[in-house]
């Protein structure tokens, strides 16, 4: 789960990480008032869950409160399109208004989980304020990595080491070490997947400060962080993806595909997507209904696939393990009835209670082609797509 910069900033502040004075505004007038309080010269930043705001006009430096109000007016209530957003962009409901900081140096600092090291990893660079991917590609030697021990945590000497290696001047090593230790506490306390400060700045008056903040959280750990869950902004997400997320389904919409995929297990879901290619079509989505999905969850998954207007056929590939195929079949029937869809289904069901499941589908009178494995699925899909959705088995608009 992602949160807005202003929310991340509040978390940093509550952990004693130095940040510029700032406030959040949802109207131009509020932005003006904040600018007055902050002394006139401020930066106005659109709050969206995406990077690349600067180039997209979502970050404006202004000299007066009136200009701050005008900048806010230009952002609020509109969609911001950056290279990281979906095509139509994402809505801006708030702007962060922050005092301008006089910068002597820009650095990069992040904490994430490194699967190879099996440990939280502090990553830092003397190259801040630019996209870190570029630094990694062009000057990888300028990225410093230090792993923390998961049992004892990050030791202060680790943090000092990082601070020294990215060129923090000797008289600022102590506050920088404290800052890094506090970021690590946030990472662990809040089950973050990423805490990223870009840029971390050294100010001309000799302070170390987080000028921007991005924090992502592990979805699987949100159950123990209601205070984080309450920060969710569903508007920032794709509508279908959000709907799937709310239902506890792993769903990713894929642009340009016409085969809806309903699968259990991420690996099989990817294999099924790959198979649609061999049938000459692209997958419309990734969808893993998960392990112990109940009937209503399967029905919801089916509904989400059907509500994607690009979908011309649905490939169902379920392998009963914890998921029972009879339960899944009842869910599919429920979903098909409530949506009234006539889309052709190609169905592979194997494993736990597969025969019962196929029987339930057969009895329900849906437009189903049953197949035994992925190879057969590809062939059946080719046939179904050649006939088209308006073919002899019933049409759809």
């Amino acid at each position, binding site marked *: 789960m992602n949160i807005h910069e202003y929310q991340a900033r509040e978390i940093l502040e509550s952990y004693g990480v130095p940040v510029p004075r700032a406030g959040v505004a949802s109207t131009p007038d509020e932005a003006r008032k904040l600018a007055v309080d902050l002394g006139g010269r401020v930066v106005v930043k659109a709050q969206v869950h995406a990077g690349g705001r600067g180039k997209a006009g979502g970050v404006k430096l202004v000299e007066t409160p009136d200009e701050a109000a005008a900048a806010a007016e230009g952002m609020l209530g509109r969609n911001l399109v950056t290279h990281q957003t979906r095509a139509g962009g994402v809505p801006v409901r708030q702007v962060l208004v922050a005092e301008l900081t006089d910068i002597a140096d820009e650095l990069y600092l992040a904490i994430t989980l490194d699967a*190879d090291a099996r440990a939280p990893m502090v990553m830092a660079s003397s190259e801040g304020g630019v996209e870190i991917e570029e630094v990694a590609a062009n000057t990888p030697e300028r990225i410093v990595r230090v792993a923390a*021990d998961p049992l004892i945590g990050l030791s202060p000497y680790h943090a000092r080491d990082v601070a020294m290696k990215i060129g923090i001047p000797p008289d600022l090593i102590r506050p920088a070490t404290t800052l890094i230790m506090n970021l690590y506490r946030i990472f*662990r306390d809040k089950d973050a997947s*990423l805490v990223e400060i870009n840029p971390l700045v050294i100010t001309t008056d000799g302070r170390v400060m987080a000028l921007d903040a991005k924090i992502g959280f592990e979805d*699987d750990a949100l159950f123990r962080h209601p205070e984080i869950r309450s920060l969710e902004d569903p508007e920032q997400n794709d509508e279908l993806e959000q709907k799937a997320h709310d239902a506890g389904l792993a769903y990713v919409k894929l642009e340009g595909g016409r085969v809806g995929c309903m699968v259990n297990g991420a*690996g099989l879901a*990817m294999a099924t997507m790959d198979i649609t290619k*061999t049938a000459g079509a692209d997958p419309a989505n990734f969808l893993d209904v998960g392990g112990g999905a109940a009937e209503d969850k399967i029905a919801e998954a089916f509904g989400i696939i059907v509500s994607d207007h690009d979908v011309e056929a649905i490939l169902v590939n379920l392998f009963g393990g914890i998921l029972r195929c009879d339960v899944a079949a009842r869910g599919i029937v429920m979903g098909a009835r409530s949506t009234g869809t006539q889309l052709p289904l190609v169905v592979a069901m194997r494993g736990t209670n597969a025969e019962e499941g196929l029987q339930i589908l057969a009895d329900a009178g849906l437009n189903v082609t049953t197949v035994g494995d992925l190879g057969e699925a590809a062939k059946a899909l080719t046939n179904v797509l050649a006939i088209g959705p308006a073919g002899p088995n019933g049409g759809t608009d």
Partner: protein
Amino acid sequence: MGILVDENTRLLVQGLGRDGSFQASRCRAYGTNMVAGVHPRRGGTKFEDEVPIFETVAEAVDATGANVGLIFVPASGAADAIIEQVDSALPLVICISEGVPVQDMVTTIRYLEGKPSRLLGPNCPGLIRPSTQTKIGIIPGNILSEGRVGVVSRSGTLTYEAVVQLTELGIGQSTCVGIGGDPIHGTTFVDVLEMFQDDDETDAIVMIGEIGGTKEQQAAEYIKNHVTKPVVGAIVGQTAPPGKRMGHAGAIITGKAALASEKIRVLREAGVHIAESPAVIGAKMAEVLGR
């Protein structure tokens, strides 16, 4: 010989809720010797009128000599269950639970270092060995056939797909192991490849990987240097969009290595026979075995 389990396997199951009970029952039906259940509020009762249930893992191990632990407890308590089983020195701990907080696993894996227990999973389907009728986990028993091909995979259900293809072509399996799809997990590809290489019941290996991380690269390196048995490999996720679920910093660490095409390249260089599509994993093995 076989790997990980054998006729002396004595299974303990922790987490006997609806799903856990259903799957434990399936394990028994396949032939697995389940000797104990663990449930904090059902101590003193019996599972299916036959298997004693204990309140703690320590009691269960003491009383029954269980030597493999299987975990179905909900994700929020899964790491705790792993630690409880490791503290009872169960040699093999298999965690099926899906959605375990990754930071719990980071700490748990570190705690395991130097302990005598091997962890398989979490978020895995467990393992199954037809020759001794031992099933620990959720892999459907009826799709397997006894034979000499070892299967190892990051995915649960895709493993079943591969097994079905093998079985349909008359190619039986020695042991089938799901290592799990979480970024932080216990037993790795390399661990299982090493076991299959040393296993006199295994002649050839199927390895199924996917996008993300660098575990397949480590496997390729190991295969190149240590595996003499033929390996058929498949990597899924060739149509998956890049960067969809990775945060900035995570994407740097894995980078290009996370791509399906890159994994296929390094596996091929290591001498792995690549199945061009997930539909032809069985066919590729048939070709390699000259059938």
